């Protein structure tokens, strides 16, 4: 869902850069001196995993493909603010080195694919986990639901930005974007739940590190 330059207007792009810059600055403040020893390699692994899996597009119906977003996973493991830093790192590298996602659109992409899904994912996951008393099934269900919702929220936000930019009317963009990404989100939900299940089986302690 990396927005290339040209899809969004300059005011929307500028607003995105402002929101992204402010949030990332706050994220650094919020996470500073809070990272434990265990988090250091975990943050590296998560950033690299999200990059690698974003290269692996899987086909969905209608000649379309999707890939993992990963914001839900990042915030499930390390909390929303560290998640924002991870997603921002991935998006900056993708835009600067791999020309995936526009340079002017970078702020908007950080908002859509980093900030908003990290918070949506974190609170959906912790909410569902709490409802299920942090049972294994509850954590997996929370991960799956968080994965799906983050992708749909991200797509809806993207549709609003395209409409506000005058690129495409909202009544065309919103159903099209949420429709496609509701399907791609199923993949996100399954992968997120599977990673949570895998980590529960081999290193359950890594799921106890997240802080809001």
């Amino acid at each position, binding site marked *: 869902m990396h927005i290339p330059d040209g899809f969004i207007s300059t005011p929307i792009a500028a607003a995105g850069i402002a929101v992204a810059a402010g949030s990332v600055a706050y994220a650094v403040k919020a996470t500073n001196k809070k990272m434990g020893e265990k988090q250091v390699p975990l943050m590296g692994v998560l950033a690299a995993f999200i990059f690698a899996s974003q290269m692996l597009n899987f086909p969905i119906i209608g000649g379309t493909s999707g890939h993992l977003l990963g914001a839900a996973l990042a915030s499930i493991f390390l909390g929303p603010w560290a998640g924002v830093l991870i997603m921002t*790192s991935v998006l900056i590298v993708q835009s600067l080195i791999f020309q995936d996602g526009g340079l002017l659109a970078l702020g908007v992409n950080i908002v859509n694919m980093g900030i908003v899904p990290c918070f949506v994912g974190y609170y959906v996951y912790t909410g569902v986990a709490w409802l299920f008393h942090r049972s294994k099934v509850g954590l997996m269900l929370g991960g799956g639901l968080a994965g799906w919702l983050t992708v749909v929220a991200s797509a809806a936000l993207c549709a609003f930005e395209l409409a506000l930019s005058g690129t495409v009317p909202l009544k065309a963009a919103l159903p099209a974007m949420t429709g496609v990404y509701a399907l791609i989100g199923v993949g996100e939900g399954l992968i997120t739940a599977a990673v949570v299940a895998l980590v529960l089986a081999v290193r359950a302690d890594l799921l106890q590190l997240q802080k809001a």
Partner: protein
Amino acid sequence: MKFKWWHGALILLFLLAILSPIASSFPDGLEKVAEDKGFIGTAVAPFFRILPDYMMPGLTNRAAATILAGLLGVLILFGIGYSLAKLLRTKNET
């Protein structure tokens, strides 16, 4: 050096990067919507190109070019994530 969990995770990530050439080349969700709704043409080409389309330039074999770009990206992002967390680490925890 003792084998830690994340050494294993890194090996898995390299394997993931090696899988990258089998990724679907269909347009992604946003591209598809842009084609269907007729605004794909408003996209502006990047201002500069380093490794566009996740391919290492100068290689004729597309699969090899994609794998190398993927491995490079995995290393860069592991490095960034690791260093960032190290900078933000708590001082009193051992």
